[in-house]
């Protein structure tokens, strides 16, 4: 089935006026009488399309412009140049039907009423989105079971743990069953279990509703377990837009293999063979093998050398992605 583009961004740019002040008393006085502002282009002529049902991760260093892109996509801020179409709407016009189709979740930012149990905020949101009481009740039941917070619905928000609050925020943001989710660091501050549960929930939600999800996160596990496609943002421009596994292969073309030989002689023999040796300590030797020749190389080693043990070291994904955040362009 051919899936239609639900998000279409063309030549999008955003500039902010930033005022700057020199340090010290002189700078303060100068700033008081004459403010110096300059226009800073934080998003630079970006274009991309996202298909219905896709989960796309936006990667980039702090201040790269990921959140600004999400804010423009959901209509929160006005673009300076270019065009955005989300579900056929111009987001910044904030038409009622558009707003009923989307949601934005920002980690650590809450819309729940602090002193009341979350159920009150859920019913309030339900009425804002024109859901009748029966429909609201059934959606709250379904989502609270999926998020496993059915026991916390009647406890004041201020008494909930961060994880429970985040799940409640998610429920409040999803009560109208939006088909486009903008998630800005949704797992920020959550413990490992809460992060995993949230990811599982998002996968399930995507599978059940075919919702499109645009996600930013500094936790690589969020990106690797949810997103097949990533858009890397570097200083306001797109440095890579494509499949995540392709990016990982490109960035990490070799694997390191630690081989424990039965004798030091075998290790010396192996070190003198055609493999690239990273280091050698007594009978332990670490070699580098290209991803596309792993199977044949291992077969060769196992057939020709007396091997006691063998470990394949995957480079940490954070390290690989870290390279993306500081590089301008990836030609893949």
């Amino acid at each position, binding site marked *: 089935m051919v899936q239609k583009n639900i998000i279409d961004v063309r030549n999008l740019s955003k500039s902010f006026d930033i005022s700057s002040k020199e340090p010290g008393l002189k700078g303060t006085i100068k700033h008081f009488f004459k403010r110096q502002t300059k226009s800073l282009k934080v998003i630079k002529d970006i274009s991309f399309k996202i298909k219905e049902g896709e989960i796309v991760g936006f990667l980039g260093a702090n201040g790269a412009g990921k959140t600004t892109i999400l804010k423009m996509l959901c209509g929160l801020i006005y673009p300076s140049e270019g065009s955005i179409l989300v579900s056929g709407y111009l987001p910044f016009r904030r038409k009622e039907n558009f707003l009923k189709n989307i949601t934005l979740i920002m980690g650590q*930012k809450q819309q729940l009423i602090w002193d009341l149990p979350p159920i009150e905020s859920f019913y*309030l949101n339900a009425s804002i989105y024109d859901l009748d009481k029966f429909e609201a009740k059934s959606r709250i039941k379904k989502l609270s079971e999926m998020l496993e917070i059915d026991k916390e619905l009647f406890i004041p928000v201020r008494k909930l743990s961060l994880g429970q609050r985040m799940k409640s925020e998610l429920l409040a943001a999803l009560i109208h069953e939006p088909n486009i989710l903008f998630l800005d660091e949704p797992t920020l501050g959550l413990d490992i279990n809460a992060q995993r549960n949230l990811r599982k929930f998002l996968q399930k939600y995507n599978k059940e509703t075919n919702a499109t999800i645009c996600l930013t996160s500094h936790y690589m596990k969020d990106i690797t377990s949810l997103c097949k496609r990533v858009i890397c943002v570097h200083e306001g421009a797109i440095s890579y837009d494509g499949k995540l596994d392709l990016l990982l292969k490109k960035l990490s073309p070799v694997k390191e293999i630690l081989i424990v030989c039965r004798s030091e002689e075998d290790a010396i023999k192996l070190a003198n063979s055609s493999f690239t040796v990273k280091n050698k300590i007594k009978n332990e030797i670490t070699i580098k093998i290209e991803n596309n020749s792993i199977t044949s190389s291992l077969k060769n080693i196992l057939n020709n050398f007396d091997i006691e043990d063998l470990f394949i070291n995957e480079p940490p994904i954070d390290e690989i992605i870290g390279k993306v955040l500081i590089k301008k362009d990836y030609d893949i």
Partner: protein
Amino acid sequence: MISKLINRKIFTLLKVQYSNMLEYRVEIALWAISGIIPFFMLNIWTNNNLNESINISDVMLSRYFLCAFFVRQFSVVWVVFSFEEDSLMGKVSPYLIQPLNPFFRYFAQHLAEQITRFPFALIIAFFFFIFNPESIWIPNLSILFLSIVSTFLSFLIQFLIQSIVACLCFWTEKASSIERLLFIPTLFLSGLLAPVVSFPAYVKSWIYLTPFPYLIDFPANLLSGNETNISGGLSMQILWILLLFPLFKKIWSEGTKKYTAMGS
């Protein structure tokens, strides 16, 4: 469409905000008590026989200041402070992408607070009558109804003025300082410190062209039974609302284009 909005969204907002306000009942009681400026002013006026210069009896003057207290209790607005805080903390962002103007939330918050405040205001009035038994009176039903309408219109005017100022947060982050400038004429020209009738004639003619005397002076005079032009006062209140509402809509639509969603 409008009735649907009022029935469902506003009613639910009111219900939820009322539950929220009940969590702060002690603070609201203190707020109600803090609004007793008119009683201090009454004391100053009667002790100095200032009422003689404007031909108002002691009894009518004390009723006026009691009514000024009531009108103030049910028309006090703080939307600029709430919006400014929410704007700086990034809390406005989730509201902006919901199909309901965020100002409806603040509007419901104010109404809910007024409902919560009502019993405390009654208790204060009860003590006022204990110390001023000669001031006890029962306004007739039609006057009472018109006074409630007029107090609500006064609340609407103040809510719109402050909402317009609050929207300036989109340009300058500290819009509340502009509100403080507006507080001065509100304090002196609204009738909170002195009935507008006590001002010199040439000043009065100018004051009545501003929205300020319709905030407290007109509804308080109406409720207390002092002489006042009912239809003229109500018309001016409606006129100010009709002038301020499109201004608010315009500044809102221009301001949201400037929104940078800082703090979020």
